[in-house]
């Protein structure tokens, strides 16, 4: 019995018999998977058909077949480990996790023993055994009612093909594409490992029948900055080798064999996109200043100490929020010296720029083993954050000592989370003094440190003028502030539409905080997700916020927004919307006034479309 399996990943160039007769002009719309514009020659990647013959073997051949399979597993594992390494250096560790999963699947007892059983007990040839066992798993994965898991079928097919070609002894998989340049790859489906073997600059774009925004191929394409469109259903069947294709990865559109008009429009858009991208990168050299000269400090939020290394490349002039609890998630409780070296890495990397380190914010949605209480009925309003620290002074003092010792450059700012009363603030500050005293008694000379309060509980806003007299800065935690002000649990799917960052009550809270801070001459920062949303940026600047902190990537787009506005104008806007009575009215006003401006900034590929 012979079975043919249609499989991707064995990348054989389609025969060019159709090249003389071009396909007609065709426009297809799919899913935007990786932004950018490209035009190029179609390089179809056909699915090679493996012929697998079922054989029942004599006893004497079984050990050889067994060896053949195990050798193929070893060879494939080596191959993947290599791709993993390349991928980690090019796309980063996080985007390369998929290959660790591949390695694990290769060692899966069900899979390996399944194949070995077929060989030893059923006396089947190794290729047939792999074919049957993988086939069964692939079929099961394709039936799973979860898109993320269905995507895993593609990973299994990738492994299947690698094992098959390893047993075929047919050399490396990607020779065919190696010499091509300026091509647009078109296939029914791509596998992640294939993408990682492409040389930089070799491929202009990627177009495929399958996949969504969250597929691994899409994530890798974005990391490699190759425009990609997925979910096109039948593009692989429609194109012929040598066709010209236009790919608009920002909007998920492709045009096969475009006419002159299409090409002209494409060139215009591509030029604009490329210019905007270049401009975004030049942004890092420029000051984040409005057209009428108001300077807004842009900082980056980081979660891992090593992220500090890249922050300056994105044009951020400091760290606006380092969430120290991520140190605590790993082990039960990090020691003072472990903490000290983590903090020191960030502080010394960033010096002389300021670094805001938030003290342990455990509890709520971030449980830290050994410290957090269990089974609270209302953890967001429970024993969390500064409350835990004040109860567990041993843990808190250890952290404060580590912070003060790490501050060799004098650029540390300590941020106290979840402050809801003056006594909490005073007790926390007393702990800082206690830690300082201890260190001084041990002959250390800790540098002076600025201490700020996180404004994220409505109670803090109500006493914000008093808090302002006793801290050096405020940092608005917009996520929690919105959640507590509107009494909307942001993790509850039933009420997600009620989580309204532009609700007048929220805007009023922010404004009151700014007014109180400026009265005392201290700055206000916003470090929640709001500081990366274009409309929110306009509002926050208008309301008088001095510093915005966001994910490093968003710094450039935010800088671009700030440089395009007049402070006087957004100030008027902010004061106008403060008088409005609901979020819908605020959003409609903002949309009417700024949607055009923001769209014209051409950052939609980076921040998403402006929503009404």
């Amino acid at each position, binding site marked *: 019995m012979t079975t043919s399996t249609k499989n991707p990943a064995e990348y054989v160039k389609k025969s060019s018999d159709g090249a003389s007769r071009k396909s007609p002009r065709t426009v297809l719309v799919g899913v935007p998977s990786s932004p950018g514009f490209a035009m190029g020659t179609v390089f179809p990647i056909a699915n090679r058909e493996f012929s697998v013959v079922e054989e029942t073997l004599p006893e004497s051949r079984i050990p050889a077949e067994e060896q053949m399979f195990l050798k193929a597993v070893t060879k494939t594992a080596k191959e993947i480990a290599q791709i993993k390494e390349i991928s980690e250096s090019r796309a980063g560790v996080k985007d390369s996790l998929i290959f660790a999963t591949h390695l694990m699947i290769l060692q899966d007892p*069900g899979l390996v023993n399944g194949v070995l059983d077929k060989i030893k007990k059923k006396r089947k040839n190794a290729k047939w055994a792999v074919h049957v066992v993988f086939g069964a798993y692939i079929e099961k*994965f394709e039936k799973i009612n*979860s898109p993320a898991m269905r995507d895993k079928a593609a990973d299994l097919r990738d492994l299947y093909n690698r094992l098959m070609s390893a047993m075929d002894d047919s050399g490396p998989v990607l020779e065919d594409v190696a010499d091509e340049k300026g091509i647009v790859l078109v296939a029914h489906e791509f596998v992640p490992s294939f993408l990682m073997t492409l040389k930089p600059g070799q491929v202009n774009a990627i177009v495929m029948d399958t996949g969504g925004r969250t597929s691994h191929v899409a994530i890798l394409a974005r990391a490699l900055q190759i425009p990609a469109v997925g979910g096109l259903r039948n593009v692989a069947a429609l194109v012929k080798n040598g066709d010209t294709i236009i790919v608009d990865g920002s909007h998920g559109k492709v045009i096969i064999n475009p006419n002159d008009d299409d090409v002209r429009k494409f060139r215009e858009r591509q030029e604009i996109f490329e210019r905007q991208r270049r401009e975004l990168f030049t942004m890092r050299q420029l000051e984040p200043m409005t057209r009428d000269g108001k300077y807004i400090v842009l900082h980056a939020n980081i979660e891992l100490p090593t992220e500090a290394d890249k922050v300056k490349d994105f044009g951020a002039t400091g760290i606006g929020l380092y969430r120290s609890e991520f140190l605590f998630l790993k082990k039960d409780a990090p020691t003072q010296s472990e903490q000290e070296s983590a903090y020191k890495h960030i502080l010394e990397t960033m010096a002389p720029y300021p670094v805001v380190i938030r003290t342990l914010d455990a509890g709520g949605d971030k449980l830290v083993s050994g410290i957090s209480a269990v089974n609270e009925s209302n953890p967001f309003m429970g024993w969390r954050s500064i409350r835990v620290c004040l109860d567990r002074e041993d843990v808190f003092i250890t952290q404060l000592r580590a912070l003060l010792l790490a501050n060799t450059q004098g650029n540390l700012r300590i941020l106290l989370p979840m402050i809801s009363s003056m006594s909490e603030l005073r007790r926390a500050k007393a702990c800082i003094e206690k830690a300082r005293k201890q260190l001084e008694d041990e002959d250390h000379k800790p540098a002076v440190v600025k201490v700020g309060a996180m404004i994220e509980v409505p109670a803090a806003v109500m006493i914000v003028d008093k808090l302002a007299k006793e801290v050096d800065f405020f940092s608005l935690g917009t996520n929690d502030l919105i959640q507590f002000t509107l009494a909307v649990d942001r993790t509850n799917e039933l009420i997600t539409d009620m989580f309204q960052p532009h609700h007048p009550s929220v805007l009023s809270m922010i404004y009151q905080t700014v007014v109180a801070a400026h009265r005392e001459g201290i700055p206000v920062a916003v470090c929640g997700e709001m500081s990366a949303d274009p409309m929110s940026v306009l509002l926050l600047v208008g309301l008088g916020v001095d510093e915005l902190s966001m994910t490093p990537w968003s710094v450039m787009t935010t800088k671009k927004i700030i440089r395009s506005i007049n402070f006087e104008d957004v100030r008027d806007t902010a004061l106008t919307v403060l008088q409005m009575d609901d979020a819908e009215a605020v959003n409609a006003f903002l949309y009417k006034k700024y949607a055009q401006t923001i769209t014209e900034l051409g950052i939609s590929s980076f921040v998403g479309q402006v929503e009404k």
Partner: protein
Amino acid sequence: MITKIFTVSNKLGIHARPAGMIVDITGQARSDVSIVFDGSKANAKSILNVMMLAIPAGSEVKFEIDGEDEEIVVQQLEKLFDDHFNEEPC
């Protein structure tokens, strides 16, 4: 034998990476480990089996651990679930 129920508390549920983290523990254990979800029971040492259960965020999963190191395995699993697999919690 120890039986223990955990709640999946990371936002994305048990996708490939958390499945790998589970198998990192169970694969090295001397005990037999099974995972039970939604009426299906599977060998928890197999990443494919664990992934195939497609366990979404918020679900309860049962582990059955039987063997000499069952106490250690249950502790390791507990820590993994408590830490939301080092991912964004739900």
